[in-house]
């Protein structure tokens, strides 16, 4: 445990936070962050990590409990006060105004102004530029944030904190969206800040990272702090056990340790004599306002009984690829075949006869929160499943729909008051189960999954992973897009890496490992001398 005496410490005692109506997110949490340390907080999804930090940062107010910063008791009604007390936070989901420039984003909320209230652009620019220099952040002050890469945007977030010269930096899952290489770069920066005397609170699901960087580690479970220990002689297994409260077999899924992987991953499917259920040929697409094509001659195929993963740093075309396959957008060129049929120009509904799809964003495309589970579960089925509608009229049969929903609830063990409950009343995990259940109960050969477990807790993810493997064993072909490298490594038979709209590399599941895939995601060749293009993009073999 480091004993640098500098930077304020933070002590939070018996903090209670209940989210309306009755989510006990923090249950009398006591935590002590010693001055000038790097303190990691780990825990399953929903353990309360972010909430605890939001309380510390004054975004949400605790229902009970005390906070001390540098020995002085404080109560933050707003982040403004927290910042004044020298506390800053980089959020799990980046908090930036896409259309604003870097410097505008940095100064927002703490703008230098003339007495007329005009923002002093020049002054701000200079100040921000200076900080960029000092910490070697390599950012263009007047670039539009929306155009920056995720990792660059994260730098902007850190820049915000440095601009406010905070002494306590809260980093909530900063590495979730980063490649291993970017993560390494971030760690260098964090250490620099730390040795500069700043206290750092670091949240991550990646135990290896945590063990790598922390002085102290706090483990949380279901809103409680279960332990705090100096980072000495700990193994991932110890942490994992503390997190989940039992020995973790599925830690492979969360951790992506090569050793565990191969034992974990089910046996390779029989050599693909099966006809492909999805063929994408030379797909290209450009979007107005974006310079380079978002999809650039992408070709791939998925065969029955295999899980093909799509890896890539966000914004490298995965999203558009999925949209093109589901029919949400029309590609400029190239063709899409499902089970041999060309569906390039086909409507969404006609594609749905051949594929099902779990969308990335629950709220946007997964369901309608205000509507009942019945209404949410019959989507698409309402036209494709004869049993739901009466033979003669175009009317739906309420009873049939209810039964269908009830069956789905049972089959996917959804925790809900009943088919009439509104989707929004369910917990995130259960909402996802409803959606997955709805899609998986289509009897089609192609299963499209876009980040199916994003933001889900371990239990739910485990369940959904099992469902995916089940589909594979039934001989369906799965295309799994995920930002979670570990998920891909543990589930996929093949991993395709996308970079700048192109297929940058393809790995057989067995030979894939975090490092090589990570390099490919950054557009670096896997090894010296081999550029990403030269990597075998051999989909139609």
């Amino acid at each position: 445990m480091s004993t640098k005496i500098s930077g304020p410490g933070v002590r939070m005692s018996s903090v209670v936070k209940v989210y309306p109506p009755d989510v006990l997110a923090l249950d009398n949490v006591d935590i002590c962050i010693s001055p000038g340390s790097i303190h990691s907080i780990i825990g399953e999804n929903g353990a309360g990590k972010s909430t605890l930090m939001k309380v510390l940062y004054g975004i949400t107010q605790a229902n009970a409990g005390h906070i001390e910063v540098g020995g002085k008791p404080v109560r933050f009604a707003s982040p403004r006060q927290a910042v004044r007390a020298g506390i800053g936070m980089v959020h799990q989901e980046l908090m930036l105004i896409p259309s604003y420039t870097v410097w505008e984003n940095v100064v927002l909320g703490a703008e230098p102004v003339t007495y007329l209230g005009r923002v002093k652009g020049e002054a701000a620019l200079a100040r921000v530029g200076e900080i960029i220099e000092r910490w070697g952040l390599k950012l263009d002050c007047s670039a539009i944030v929306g155009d920056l890469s995720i990792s660059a945007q994260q730098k902007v977030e850190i820049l915000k904190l440095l601009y406010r010269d905070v002494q306590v930096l809260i980093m909530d899952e900063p590495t979730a969206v980063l490649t291993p290489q970017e993560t390494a770069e971030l760690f260098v920066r964090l250490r620099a800040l730390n040795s500069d005397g700043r206290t750092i609170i670091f949240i991550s699901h990646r135990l290896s990272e945590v063990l790598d960087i922390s002085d102290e580690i706090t483990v949380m479970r279901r809103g409680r702090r279960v332990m705090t220990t100096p980072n000495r002689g700990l193994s991932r297994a110890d942490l994992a056990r503390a997190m989940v409260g039992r020995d973790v077999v599925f830690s492979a899924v969360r951790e992506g340790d090569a050793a565990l992987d191969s034992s974990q991953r089910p046996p390779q499917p029989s050599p693909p004599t099966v006809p492909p259920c999805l063929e994408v040929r030379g797909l290209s697409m450009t979007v107005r306002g974006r310079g380079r094509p978002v999809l650039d001659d992408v070709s791939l195929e998925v065969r029955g009984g295999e899980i093909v993963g799509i890896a890539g740093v966000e914004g490298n075309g995965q999203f558009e690829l999925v949209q093109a396959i589901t029919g949400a957008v029309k590609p400029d060129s190239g063709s899409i075949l499902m089970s041999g049929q060309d569906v390039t120009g086909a409507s969404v509904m006609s594609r749905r006869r051949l594929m099902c799809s779990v969308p990335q964003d629950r709220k946007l495309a997964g369901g309608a929160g205000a509507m009942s589970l019945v209404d949410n579960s019959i989507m698409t089925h309402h036209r494709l499943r004869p049993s739901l509608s009466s033979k003669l009229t175009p009317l739906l049969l309420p009873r049939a729909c209810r039964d269908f929903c009830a069956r789905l609830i049972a089959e996917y063990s959804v925790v809900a008051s009943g088919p009439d409950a509104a989707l929004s009343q369910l917990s995130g995990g259960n909402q996802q189960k409803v959606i997955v259940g709805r899609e998986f109960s289509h009897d089609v050969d192609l299963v499209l999954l876009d980040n199916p477990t994003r933001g889900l807790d371990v239990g739910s993810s485990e369940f959904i992973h099992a469902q995916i493997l089940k589909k594979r064993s039934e001989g369906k072909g799965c295309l799994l897009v995920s930002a979670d490298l570990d998920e891909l490594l543990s589930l996929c038979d093949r991993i395709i890496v996308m970079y700048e709209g192109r297929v940058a590399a393809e790995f057989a599941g067995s030979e894939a490992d975090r490092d090589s895939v990570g390099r490919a995601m950054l557009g670096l060749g896997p090894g010296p001398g081999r550029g990403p293009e030269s990597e075998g993009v051999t989909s139609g073999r």
Partner: protein
Amino acid sequence: MAATDLAIELLRASVLAATPVLLAAVGGAYTYFANVFNIAMEGMMLIGAFTAVVGSYFARSWAVGLAAGVAGGLVAAALFVLFAVALRTDEFVTGTAINMLALGGTTYALRQMFGVRGAFMSSQIRALPRWDLPFGPVLGGHPFLVYMALVLTLLAEWHIRRTRFGMRLRAAGEDPKTLDAAGVSSSAMKAWSIMISGALCGLAGAYLSLGYVRLFSENMSNGRGWISLAAIILTRGRPLGILVMSLAFGLFDGMGMSLQGAGIPAQLTQMLPYVATLAALRIYSLRQKL
């Protein structure tokens, strides 16, 4: 000779007719950037027009009238804030209800306070002073609010683009969460934008009842709030664009009646400004595509 007079009168009339639309729309620009769907402008304007007359009548002073008009607009805005921001009621609903409340309320109050229906006019109502600025026959000698409106437009352009307030306002509209995280309450910014638009709609109302004419008549705002909204949406909230739009509206509005001279039935000529708006929308949609 008479023709040129008529032309001048038309332009003059269009300036007069444009002003209330402009005032309201500039206020609406604030809510537009704060991403508040503000369809209550019609009602705010109407209330402003009424309270302005009340103030001017009882205090025998246009200044008090003006203040009262603004106050009226602010009260309506406060109601909007209470429901749409504080109680999280849907903005469209709140707006529609406030419009309805304004129509019913002013008519009702007209009855209660002055015992008349339809309209209230009296020599005791003090009109806004006219400024005989040497701006020629078209721009000279208008109620001073006309000139104020121009100044306010430029001011708003600067305020929204350049100042801290504007920066936070636009942030609140684009991504409230981020603004909150930056320690500025996005709800507060929304509330401010609504209050500002309320004040300006109040001005617009005062202009109608103390400047344009010197009386209050039921449903006096008469759809101008809607036109303002259209102007805002068309110009994506840019005050200068709004200026152009509202002048165009004023011109077509006046032109409608003079076309009667050309033998076109009155009922049809009244449609002109609205048809023009549709045309503008079409042109805008064209520009959007390219």
